[in-house]
């Protein structure tokens, strides 16, 4: 009997070796492990055996059954693996086909630059103050120490609006500096005897009567800055704007301040930064000067402080004006300023 069981085992394991597919495996199971298989039948005959043989044969029959079941499981799992491998092999994709595009929204490059500028100045305590595009001559010029017919006005050719008065025409602001007076007056009115300190930037659209070309536009954005307090100096102007340049361009960049002239500041300075393309060695971007003109600035003129309600004997301050288009053009090597308002998607899509 024991030999018979051993024979079944050998026969079954041998037969399993030649099983090639699921159907054959099922057939094998039916043949060797199903109810009417020789093995199961032999277990049923245990009762006919002697009490002495019964445990031995029973043990053997169980062992054979477990062995065959384990072999079946192993075989089944191997065949599953094989099947999976086979199907994975046939499911390969052309990974070089383009993916499904998701539309990516973007901000206009000038918005991006304005945000960078605002963020840097915000960390230095400058808050944003906005004022109108259409101004009076008084706010755009007169209160900023540009008297009527003054030669300084030649530096800013202006658009005027129909219907204004002769003495105080309505115009499109030529700089956001016009907002300086609005802001100072608003703050000083809150406490005329002790006006609070001012630290603001004034972003916005400005307009000048200039022929449109690759380098100049009738409409452009500007960020004016103004700091007024009881202890603010030209040295602070240099420090603050150098800090800005080092944040905006790179931490090592050098700055240079040249004497200049703006009617609403005195002394006035142009700030140049070392060319970030050639690092001061001279290249076509900096026109072989090693430096890039970045902004105009200066100590706020006493007349302007006074017009804003700040006593120039006690208060001092500095102001500056940045051109976001110029900064953007330098940063991305943009050749033509007209790209900004033309809004060709082939241009805009480059700035994510």
């Amino acid at each position, binding site marked *: 009997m024991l030999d018979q069981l051993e024979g079944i085992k050998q026969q079954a394991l041998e037969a399993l070796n030649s099983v090639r597919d699921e159907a054959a495996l099922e057939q094998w199971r039916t043949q060797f492990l199903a109810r009417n298989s020789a093995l199961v039948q032999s277990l049923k005959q245990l009762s006919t055996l002697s009490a002495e043989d019964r445990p031995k044969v029973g043990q053997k029959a169980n062992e054979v059954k477990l062995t065959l079941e384990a072999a079946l499981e192993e075989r089944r799992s191997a065949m599953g693996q094989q099947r999976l491998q086979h199907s994975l092999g046939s499911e390969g994709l052309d990974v070089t*086909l383009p993916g*499904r*595009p998701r*539309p*990516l*929204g973007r901000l*206009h490059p*000038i918005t991006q630059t304005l945000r960078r500028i605002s963020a840097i100045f915000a960390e*230095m*305590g400058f*808050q944003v103050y*906005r004022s*109108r*595009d*259409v101004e*009076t001559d008084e706010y755009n010029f007169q209160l900023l120490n540009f008297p009527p*017919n003054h*030669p300084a006005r030649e*530096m800013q050719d202006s*658009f*005027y*609006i*129909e219907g204004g*008065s002769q003495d105080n025409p*309505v115009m*499109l602001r030529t700089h956001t500096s016009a907002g300086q007076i609005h802001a100072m007056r608003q*703050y000083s009115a809150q406490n005329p005897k002790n006006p*609070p*300190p001012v630290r603001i930037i004034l972003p916005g659209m400005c307009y000048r*009567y200039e022929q*449109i070309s690759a380098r100049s536009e*009738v*409409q452009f954005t500007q960020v004016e800055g103004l*700091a007024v307090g009881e*202890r*603010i100096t*030209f*040295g602070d102007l*240099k*420090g*603050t704007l*150098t800090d800005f340049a080092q944040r905006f361009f790179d931490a090592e960049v050098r700055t240079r*301040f*040249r*004497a200049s*002239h703006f009617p609403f500041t*005195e*002394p006035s300075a142009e700030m140049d930064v070392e060319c970030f393309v050639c690092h001061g060695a*001279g290249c076509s971007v900096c026109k*072989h*000067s*090693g430096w890039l003109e970045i902004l105009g600035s200066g*100590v706020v*003129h*006493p007349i302007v402080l006074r017009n804003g309600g700040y006593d120039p004997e006690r208060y001092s301050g500095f102001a500056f004006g940045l051109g976001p288009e110029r900064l953007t053009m330098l940063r991305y090597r943009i050749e033509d300023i007209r790209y*900004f308002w033309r*809004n*060709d*998607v082939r241009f*805009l899509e480059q700035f994510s």
Partner: protein
Amino acid sequence: MRIPISWLKEFVNLDDISVEDLAYKLTMAGLEVEEIQYVGLPMPSAKGLSHARLSGIAWDRAKIVVGEIREVTPHPNADRLVLCRLYDGKQEHIVLTGAPHLFEYKGKGELKKPIKVAYAKQGAEIYDGHQPGFQKTILKRTKIRGVESSSMVCSEKELGISEEHEGIIILGSDAEPGMPLADYMGDAVLTIAITPNIARDANIYGVAREVSALLGRKLKPMPAKFKAQGPSVRGKAKIEIKEPELNPRFVLGLIKGIQIKPSPGWVQRRLSLAGMRPINNIVDATNYAMLELGEPLHAFDYDVLVQRAGGKAPTIITRLAKKGEKLTTLDGVERKLDGFTVLVCDTAGALSIAGVMGGAESEVTEKTRSVLLEGAAWNFINIRKTLNSQRLSSEAAYRFSRGVHPAMALRGVSRGLELMRLWAGGTVNEGLIDKYPLPAKPSVVEIAPEDARRWLGLQLTSAQMAAILRRLEFGVRTQGQKLAVTSPDHRLDIGEGVVGMADLMEEIARVYGYEKIAATRMADELPPQRGNRTLEIEERIRDLLARLGLQEIMTYRLTTPEQEARRLPAGTLPDDKPYVRVANPISQERVVLRKSLLASVLETVERNANLREHLAVFEIGEVFHASEAGPLPDELPRLVLAMAGPREPQHWEAADAGPVDFYDMKGIVGGLLDGLNLGELRYEPGQHPAFHPGKCARVLSGDRQLGVFGELHPQVQSQYDLPRRPVQIATFNLDAIYDVVPERFDSVSVPAYPPVLEDLAFVVSEAIPAGQVEALIRQTGGRLLASLSLFDVYRGEQIGAGKKSLAYQLTYQDPERTLTDEDVAKLRSRIVKRLEQEFGAQLRA
């Protein structure tokens, strides 16, 4: 302002400083050198760094030298050419030239007085005299009419001095043959941008004064003396000033017996380098004096004036023009004058527009023998008004319109008379006639070291401050720590009090050097925190729309009514708001401020329509409406969105290539407003002429309309160059959005108990908007209906004509417990009943 270095050297020593270093120092001190034009002097090697543009030509020291013409002989084959026997310091050459100067010497044998010329040898780099403009060329060996030629005698043009190419340059007899020409007359010209605050420097002496202050070198005295050998000028002319405010000073001098002829060569060359055309010795003398000292002069033919005065001594009268008065100026234009324009007249009538341009009649001519020379002071604002009104410009007006100190009138006339005497002969009458009814008062400003500390952040002693100011010719008196500073009599730009203080701080900082002032961080108190709510909301909107896949654009705010009219169907009645119009438009395309942001955005869509199939853009910006409240228009912030093209970008396995429709835009609008936490919104059919009447909605928060969106009216679409694909647009009034955006919102806890999901479909009449069905379900479901979403709309035979089936997924949820089947069944039947009662809705099995 063009400043030849050679001229500058007459007033300040420039040994041991290169042209480039000088230009750098001037630039840093506010006299920006825009260009350095080399006229012979060596140029910096290769690609040196320079703030200024570099141009011009350096004369090769070995190949361009002083030559000496010893004999002039005819050319064997050409009448218009001569051969020169020329000595170059080492040997003689035969040089060919066509210069008319030399024809008179032809065949005269050995010249007694050799002619000194600029001689260029083979291989020298010069400008091509025969090409228009200035083109560099290398002098080569050639044969002209059978005679070998490898070198040449140069014209001014060939050496880059002027455009003159008719004749050759004749040098002074002091020029040594063989000497490098660069050593004899090599020069460089600085072009300096004169900002309004340095109007006093629009002349050689002014720049020399700055250079002397910046380098700490001595400034030579101003050349303002003349040698008089004639009788006193007294009684030879009279001056009457009617408007001293406009004409504070008027000075006249007289020279007789002059001979009009060309100026000496060096004078002509110097004027050319400074940018003025040489005319004759008298006109050149006035220009030379003006360029040198900054005082424009005017030369009258004295004999003509005497004749006009009927043989008597002329009286010069300055007065305002009469209404409608006319004058023909030197440029041949008859000008109608304004009442504010000042004229220089005599008893017979107007002679010139004061400070701007002379009249034709009293001008110096070939026949002039006596000159009455005018130097005056004019109110610069008034001169500007005249310039603007007459659309005139001149070198004189350039200076007078920026302010010239009255003290310069006397100096200018003195200098002019002396130059005329030197170049035109004649005798100068003793003295000057000087009317000075309104003497300029110098400013006196008190400053102290504390001012430099407070204004500049600079620690200086009063002695250091005084030294700087004295270098600029300020008068300085020391009173302990304080300085009493008096402005010099060549500048008008120093104010009084605290303004004067700032003016002096600028001078001190400039000359001391900005680069030496330490950069510091502000030590001042921070201002109160104010924030900027509208900007913050605007920036949130930008971010939300970019996240929703839209591209931001920024467009022109100047446009035309015609461009904007395209945004409405032709024939739409215009609104009654007038445009804000530009009084002086620069082009026909930019005449008004925009009234509609929609028009700007549609133009952008139009421009890009052929570049990209799928477009989704937005702009935030102001529109401008004329205001009834005052001259300033209302500036109203708007937001406009536009989408067109296929819903999904083009792809090789496109899932949905259908065009964007109303519901795409509604999705974007909903996403935006949801992102702003606006809470419950209401959508209603909208009406707007730019929109398709059946595909337009307005969105409200409470009773406040925020915006309108939908499909662009097909008729509007046809007014743009757009493909035949629907365009979806949305337009918002940002002021309304600012009003309703909450400062904060309450979050909702994540439920701890499981929800129950259920799908219900209702058949209702087409006439009932889905929004109403939804609202009723929500209302009935109450707090246990956690969410509701429409997942299918069906129309078809199964449900009959005029009806639609709306299929919703409902999520029931009780935050406090698990809902039972019974709870759900109760809720469901309540909803079904309500819908049946209100809308006759049938639950679809």
